[in-house]
């Protein structure tokens, strides 16, 4: 009995040792190291004032070790961003920039990675109050990576930066440029998701700059070109905001609600719109009588 149990335990130990020795997987080891470093970094960011310096050292050394020992792994790509963000958080901007440059210069980097790297690089300059340099990075992002989420949104980000600084004139100019940028993308990608996103962002810019007539035109264009149900549903709150509340054109809103109702297969939406149309029609009749 004892002998059998000992044999069973020995087999388990032997299998464990064998698997540990033969499981040489750099990707796994790198992922594990990255996870541990990220966990420690989480603790640092939760309580930055009370953590011992050794914790910061551990994170930095772990991330650097991954890059040195396992540079070819997928985990190394994530590690570079983690290291850059670690430096940014700890205000070591001079150390963050070379890491970001390494990401940008990598031959196998995909568009999403590159767009993120340019954005973070711009952010580093922004934190150092070097807006011109930041703007240069954001311009690359806008011009070369406008088919990525970050590249698509950067023109609005630039406008918002000026608003934050209280520079209304430059903000207006930035938003006008942004609108022209989205208009171009929308024309080039009509009927595609990218075209829809560009129009939506253009609509948001016009609403933000209180150009409601233009915003209304964009909404109508979206409804005309993008008849997917989700696209129509997404426009409804803007129809209310722009046509009913801002432009005071309830008849136009009513026309759009009827259009959406007639083109949707969603029964709940139909019911909702029927009620809205009824209420608006009654109100219109009452207003007519009063007049």
């Amino acid at each position: 009995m004892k002998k059998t149990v000992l044999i069973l335990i020995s087999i388990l130990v032997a299998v464990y040792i064998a698997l540990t020795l033969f499981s040489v997987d750099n990707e796994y080891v790198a992922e594990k190291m990255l996870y541990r470093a990220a966990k420690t970094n989480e603790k640092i960011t939760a309580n930055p004032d009370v953590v011992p310096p050794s914790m910061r050292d551990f994170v930095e050394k772990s991330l650097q070790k991954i890059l040195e020992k396992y540079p070819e792994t997928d985990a190394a790509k994530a590690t570079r961003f983690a290291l850059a963000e670690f430096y940014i958080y700890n205000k070591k901007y001079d150390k963050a920039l070379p890491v970001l440059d390494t990401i940008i210069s990598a031959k196998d980097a995909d568009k999403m990675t590159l767009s993120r790297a340019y954005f973070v690089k711009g952010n580093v300059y922004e934190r150092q109050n070097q807006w011109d340099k930041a703007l240069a990075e954001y311009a690359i992002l806008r011009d070369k990576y406008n088919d990525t989420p970050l590249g698509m949104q950067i023109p609005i980000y630039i406008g918002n930066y000026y608003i934050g600084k209280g520079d209304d004139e430059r903000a207006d100019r930035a938003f006008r440029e942004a609108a022209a940028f989205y208009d171009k993308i929308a024309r080039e990608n009509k009927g595609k998701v990218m075209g829809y996103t560009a129009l939506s962002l253009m609509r948001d810019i016009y609403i933000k700059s209180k150009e409601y007539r233009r915003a209304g035109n964009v909404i109508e264009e979206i409804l005309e070109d993008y008849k997917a149900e989700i696209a129509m549903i997404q426009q409804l709150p803007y129809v209310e905001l722009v046509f009913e509340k801002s432009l005071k054109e309830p008849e136009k809103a009513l026309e759009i609600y009827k259009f959406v109702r007639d083109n949707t297969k969603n029964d709940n939406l139909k019911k909702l719109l029927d009620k809205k149309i009824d209420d608006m029609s009654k109100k219109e009749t009452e207003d007519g009588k009063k007049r």
Partner: protein
Amino acid sequence: MKKISVRHIWINTFGLIVKKPVIILPFFIIAFLEALTLELVYFSGRNPLAIIVGPIVKKFFGEGFTHYPYCIYAIPRVFNFLQIVIYVLAGTLLTAISINIFKNVKAGLPLKQNALLKNGISRYGAFVALGIIMVLIMLLLEKAGGFAFSKFTNLSIKYLPAVVMKIYPLVFAALLFLANAITQTFFIATLPLMVMDKKPLLKALLQSVLLGLRNFKTVFILVFLPFLLYFPITLLKGLSVQLAGKMFPEIILLILLLGVLATPFVECFVFISIAQFLLEKGERKEK
């Protein structure tokens, strides 16, 4: 007729296991198979095993679960499935062998390894069928538990104060654990009846249910109290993902290993107690 005392059964069972530890050996083999499986599942997240297992994990769990730490988070589900396979294919057979050893020891018969194995294998099909039935019953109970949990949760949010809601999952886990023990009360004697009285599967199942009904209190205590050792492990299993997030992902493995290590002792004690109970019941009837 004087009732059979639970204390008396436990003393006899414990004494017998200490005197003839070979009774527990089949349960150690089950634990060994489970531990070996756990090792393989753990290492399947990295090469070379990942080359074979990776595509399967990707298909059933998604790309994310092939990377650390999510490959560790997937282990309980994979291991749970493999535990069921082990239980059906080997668990019932090995438990039957253990009960057979107990029977021979009690009858003063010699313990011949080949004869015990041959005896067990001759009814392997019935044991596998019992394993499948038990798994289906447990899965049904789990589904019913999940359904009840969602229904009661909806009601509890409306009517129970926030403080009660904090301990509510714990209370519900305890209730589920109790329901599991009650279910086992009606089916636990099936295997001992099949081995000791050589009853066919369906007859043994029916008799086990009747035994549970007629001797509910005794059988329930025989099952429930040793099973209580599983309760903290069950709770830990339920909290393992949260614990992994707060401590380290490998804690999931340690919790599963704890469950594997507890199994031979708890299961052996419960089954042999039930066998002892059946034996004493039979002896009293004869008298």
